[in-house]
Structures are given as structure tokens and as C-alpha cells.
């Protein structure tokens, strides 16, 4: 199998694939609950219902981030220090956000109304902070961690774009899981956040090939230009389609409520694929390839076997939990 990768081991490739899957799942899954968190700051009426819709899921969703960073640490020990060291402060800000929103979730359900307001603010602020810092890190990563004024401005733009994208995914989730007044609100949120995220996506798409000749060649040299053209074209078409679907929502039979969330997943998938295609085989952009950064093959193998056994089980019980809590959200009661 190593022959496929020019004589290099296939294991680092498998692990960067696993890490990619974890990040993708994280962006979609925690994306919707971070998005709901961001949107919860825009309303007072529907907070409890909104938070109830993500109650059974948020914890497992966040675990995909733990797996992703875990895989970075354990499979690419020589890249982790470089990447996380370069992102030291934004990582700390993200952690602050994750801590605030994670605990606010539980505290708000257990304290008096007077204090609940503060935990609600922590939930909103934490979600927003998490989304912004993740976007900022993505921006810096694309530009190879170089901090010039232009680059920081770009990272700031990506930060807003990612927060908007999470808000859109969250709005899509709410359209799927809610009804009545909340669903109407969610449609309005989705309409705005769709175009904000589209701007962020466009910025990333334009900037990425300009960062290095290598990435430029990968996209614009023949025959890649023709082969890859469908990626941005389909993405654009999806965004337009989402725009029109949102105009038709909410509809009386609720038969389209699945569409925004599914569309969001498709757009995230395509955007992620585009980025992964651009940077592969580098894990630290233009500096370190996956093979240079990887742990020993023996250690990767023992984790690979474990992952092959356990990941299907995780998929199985995750789908079980989504079945148990399927349908429109009811008020969350402990019993």
C-alpha cells in the first residue's frame, strides 16, 4: 500500500484522514450547537427551547474536538508543538470560550432566575468567543502563521465568517428541530447568516491559492482547473439554492425543514474538501509534511487498529442517541 504514496508509509495519511474526519464532524456537530449558542444571544423568548434542542448532544459533539486535537498530539508529535505554539493565545481564548459555554449549560438549569441571566450571557459569550477564535486560527493557519497587519485582518474576516457559518448551521438545526415562532425566527437568522458565511467562504477561497505557488498550481494548472471546477461551482449553486429554500420556509407541512441543515452540511463538506486538497500533504503549511511530523509506524498501527474497532461502535451509539431524541424538541426535563 505504501507504493501509493511514493514509498512513504500509508499510516500518516490514514491518520491525517482520520483527523480530517474528526474536524469535519466537529465543525458540523459542534457547529450547530455553537451556532445555537450564538443565536441564543439574539432572543430572550426562546432560550430554553433552543438550549433544550442541543442538550442531549453538545457534550459528545465537543468530544470530536478532543479527538481531533488528540490525533494531532498523538499521531503528529512533531507538528503539534509548532501549530499549537504558533496559536498560543487564540487557543487560550478558545478554551476560555469552551469552558464558559460548557459549564453555563449546566449551571443555568440549576440556579435562581437572577443568576440564570449571567449564565445565559456566559453561554452566548462563550459560544461566540469559541467560534471567533476558531475562525481566527483557521485564518492564521491558511497564511502559515505569519502575523502581518494584512494577515491579522484576514484572520479577523475568517473569524466572523466562521461564526456566521456556525450560526447558519445552528439556524438550520433549529429549523429542523423546532416549530412555530422559534422556527420563523430561525429562518430569519438563517437568511442573514447564510450570506455572511458566504462572504467568509469566498475570502478563504480567494486567499488560499494566493498564499503559495504550490497551492495555486494545484488548482489552476491543467487539467486540475477543469477537474476541480465543480467544487466551487456546486458550492455556489448550493448557497443559491439555500437562499431560495429559505424564502419558502417555514412551510405548512414542514416538509422542507430538513433542507437548510442538510445544505449546510454539504457546503461545509465541500469547503473542507477544498482546504484539505490545498494543504495536503503539508500539516504545517509549506513547512512540514504529514510524514515528517508523524509518530512511529508501530504506534500509529496500534492506534489505527483501535480506531477501526471503536469508531464504528461510536457511530452506532451516536445514531442510537439521535434516534432516541429525534423529532421536534420538547422541553428538557431531567425526568
Amino acid at each position, binding site marked *: 500500500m505504501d507504493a501509493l504514496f511514493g514509498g512513504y508509509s500509508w499510516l500518516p495519511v490514514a491518520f491525517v484522514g482520520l483527523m480530517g474526519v474528526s474536524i469535519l464532524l466537529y465543525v458540523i456537530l459542534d457547529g450547530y450547537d455553537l451556532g445555537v449558542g450564538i443565536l441564543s444571544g439574539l432572543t430572550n423568548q426562546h432560550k430554553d427551547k433552543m438550549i433544550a434542542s442541543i*442538550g*442531549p*448532544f453538545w*457534550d*459528545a459533539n*465537543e*468530544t470530536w*474536538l*478532543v*479527538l481531533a*486535537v*488528540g*490525533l*494531532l*498530539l*498523538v*499521531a503528529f*508529535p512533531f507538528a*503539534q*508543538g*509548532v*501549530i*499549537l*505554539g504558533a*496559536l*498560543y*493565545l487564540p*487557543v*487560550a481564548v478558545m*478554551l*476560555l470560550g*469552551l*469552558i*464558559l459555554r*460548557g*459549564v453555563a*449549560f*449546566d*449551571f443555568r438549569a*440549576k*440556579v435562581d432566575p437572577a443568576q440564570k441571566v449571567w449564565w445565559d450571557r456566559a453561554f452566548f459569550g462563550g459560544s461566540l468567543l469559541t467560534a471567533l477564535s476558531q475562525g481566527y486560527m483557521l485564518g492564521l493557519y491558511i497564511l502559515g502563521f505569519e502575523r502581518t497587519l494584512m494577515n491579522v485582518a484576514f484572520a479577523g474576516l475568517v473569524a466572523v465568517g466562521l461564526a456566521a457559518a456556525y450560526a447558519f448551521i445552528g439556524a438550520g438545526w433549529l429549523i429542523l428541530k423546532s416549530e412555530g415562532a422559534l422556527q420563523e425566527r430561525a429562518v430569519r437568522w438563517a437568511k442573514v447568516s447564510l450570506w455572511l458565511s458566504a462572504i467568509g467562504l469566498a475570502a478563504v477561497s480567494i486567499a488560499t491559492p494566493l498564499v503559495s505557488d504550490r497551492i495555486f498550481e494545484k488548482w489552476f494548472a491543467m487539467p486540475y482547473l477543469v477537474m476541480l471546477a465543480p467544487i466551487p461551482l456546486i458550492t455556489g449553486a448550493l448557497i443559491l439554492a439555500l437562499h431560495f429554500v429559505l424564502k419558502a420556509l417555514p412551510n405548512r407541512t414542514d416538509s422542507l425543514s430538513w433542507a437548510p441543515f442538510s445544505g449546510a452540511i454539504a457546503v461545509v463538506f465541500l469547503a473542507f474538501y477544498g482546504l484539505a486538497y490545498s494543504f495536503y500533504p503539508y500539516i504545517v503549511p509549506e513547512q512540514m509534511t504529514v510524514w515528517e511530523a508523524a*509518530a*512511529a509506524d508501530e*504506534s500509529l498501527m*496500534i*492506534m489505527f487498529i*483501535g*480506531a477501526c474497532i*471503536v*469508531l464504528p461502535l*461510536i457511530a452506532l*451509539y*451516536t445514531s442510537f*442517541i439521535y434516534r*432516541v*431524541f429525534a423529532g421536534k424538541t420538547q422541553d*428538557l*426535563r*431531567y*425526568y
Partner: protein
Amino acid sequence: MMDTLMLSRIQFGANITFHILFPTITIALGWVLLFFKLRYNRTGDMAWMDAYKFWVKVFALTFALGVVSGVTMSFQFGTNWPGFMESVGNIAGPLLAYEILTAFFLEATFLAIMLFGFNRVSNRVHTIATVLVAVGTTMSAFWILVLNSWMHTPQGFEMREGVAYVTSWWEVIFNPSMPYRLVHMLLASGLTAAFLIAGISAYRYLRGDRSEGVGKALRTGIVMAALLIPAQIFAGDLHGLNTLEHQPAKIAAMEGNWETRGNVPLVLFALPDQEARENRFEIAIPNGASLILEHDPAGIVPGLNDFVREDGTVEHPPVAPVFFAFRIMVGIGLLMLAVSWFGSWQLYRRGAPSPWMLRGLVAMTFSGWVATVAGWYVTEIGRQPWLVSGVLTTAEAVTTTPAGMVASTLAMYLAIYAALTAAYVWTLYHLARRDGAAATSGQAVTPEARVSKGGGRVAGPIPAE
């Protein structure tokens, strides 16, 4: 101004101190919840379910705090200690990966069923979810303690160009200190949860909430503590002997013993002076340390001066923190023994603890935290200056991030940890008051539910005074 190394150590120390508070509770509380659930399944007595419902809320809050502080920790490996993974990533990596894969997802997913699923799934599935969450927390403890123990007593690897390569996974996992540390930590978790349950229940009881659910939880806590504490003292002693064999410098610091010699006294109190290399104001029992460690009054106990090189380089841990943390841990252990046995005796003789015993239990609510943290300080500071004993020093693994940046994140973490710890403790008492108020006004506890058909089988209901 402190350097990046010291600041990163304080930051990681603060983070792991904050983190361990919560898993220490949830590891054992998961099994206690299973016990409540199984008693309910067996007896049909709603009081057990009342206890379950209250403590599952505590579990959820505690679990959330454990998750967020754990996420922070995993990132800090990379941001502050890149040398750790670069050097021993081939060993630490798979162990951490197995923890995430086998434990984290399991816990997070089935906790949702435990919390919100009682009316959505069958009682059997709900019980299974409780089992899986308990298994998950314990599995998580297993993997992380395997890794931590390996850092204390590494084996099963070879070094090539500064990077550790595994030669035997069996030796890595079953490294010499792992069984002792695992048992010691699981028992510590059991005791922490037992005193938490007893303390909060005693608080509710003192406030007039004499519902059966509270009584059952109170008894469970006291009896559990009384059963676990002798086991813990025994396991702790074995762990100490294991440390003597593999990390003598740590033992020397714990005992405050400077010279390797026989007839070493057991130092009850002293101010260890690392400059003068002697103890001041020492109060000691003659031959005590030799007796405990070697089971012989003349037994030779290693001394700290053996771990100073000719050129004056100190290769033993800082003495005072290890010395005092050890005494705090043992002191609380003995207090736990006294309180839980006396409390059990009162339960046996009078059917209920006396009011001052209840107040004592309230005072001891978080005693498990203090003992656990003190114990971890003993073992972790006791490993210094090594990060992985004999393989990698802490100084070698640290980041090159500027000190000012680490100082700013440290300040942020300290502020939020302090605030959240206070909020957590406050919320537990608030929950106790709120549910207590609901119970005494009859909201949560219906009279029908009070008619227990088997409540007296395990432990008779505590008579209302």
C-alpha cells in the same frame, strides 16, 4: 519575573488541580448512581429513585466541569509542553487515543440518556446507560493512570535519537507503579464521592429534609466511606512501598529524611530547610519511618543527600511541598477513618447519626478533594525534576513561548478556575436547599412514593426526630 518553565508548571498544575476535582467525584459517583438504580429496580422504592435524581444532577454538573477542564489540559500538552509528545509521543499517544476512543464518547453519549432519557427509553436501557457511563469514567481513569504511572516508572521502551520507541506494550501498560496508583486513585475517588454524598445529605437532613431519599443517600455515603477507608490506608501503604522501590528520592522527601541510615524516625511535623539540608522544629516518633517502610526498627531509609551530585546539582524534588502535602493527605485519611467509623457505629446503634456527627459530615463534605489534591502533589512534585523519570526532565519539554504570554493565560485560567470552583460549591448547596424545599413542601415527593415496599431491607428508614 518567573520564567516560562515555572509559569507553565504553575499553569499546568493549576489546570490539573482544577480538573482532578471533578473526575474524582464522577468516577465513583457513576457507580453509586448505578447502586441507587439497581436498588430501585430491585425494591421499586421511589426513595432510591429520588436519590438517583438528585445525584444525577450533581453528576451532570460535575461531569461538565470535568470535560471543559480536560479539554483545556489536552491543548496544554501542545501549547506548553511540546517536548513531551516529541520525546515520548509513541507511548503517550496511543494511551491517550485509547482514552478518547473508549471512554469519552461513551460517557458523553450515554450521559444524555441517563439525564434526559428516563421517559424516552425503557427502564432497562436507562439502567444500561448508567452502567456504560460508570464503565466509561472508570475506563478513562484506567488509561490516564496507565500513562501517568508510566511517567513515574517507565519501562517497555528504548530510546533512539531522543525519541522513545515501544518494545513491549504489555510492559508499558503494566508498569510497576500502575496497579498501585490505579487502586489508590479509584479508592480516593470512592472516598471523595462518599464524603460528598454524606456531607450534602447531612446538610439537607440538618435543614429538616428528612425524606427517605436523603436518608438512604446519607447511609450510603457513611457506610461506603467506612468500608473504603481501611482499604485505602492499606493500598496507600503498598503504594508507598512501591515508590520506595522505584522512586526513593520521593520517599526521602515525603519522610523529610536527609541522610540514608537506619533507625529513621517518623517525622510528624517539621520545617524542612533545603538550604541547610536539615529539619527544624522536628517532632518525631523514634524508628517510625524505618518500621513503616522496612518493617524493622533498624531498616535503612534512603536520604535526600544521596540525590545531590558532586557539583551540587540537586536531583531530588523540592522537599517542603512534598513533605507537607503528604502529611495533609495522611491526616485527612485518619480523620476520614474516625468520622466514618464513628458515624457507622451511630447508624448501627441509634439508627441515625447524632446532630454533631451530621455537622462533622457537613464540614467533611469536600475533604476528599483536599486529600486527593494533596496526594497528587506528593506524587507529581515528588517526580521532579523529571517529567518522565530518568528519561525526560520537565525543563526539556517546555515550550519556547515568551513568559509574558504564559503569564497572561495563567492569570486568565486562575481567575476562571477560582470563580468556577466557587460557583460549583455554591450550586451544590443551592441544589440541596432547593430540592430540600421541594421535598418538604411535597412537590417532588408524593405521599404515594413515600409508601415504600422494600425500603427497610437494606437500611431502615431514618426515623424523623
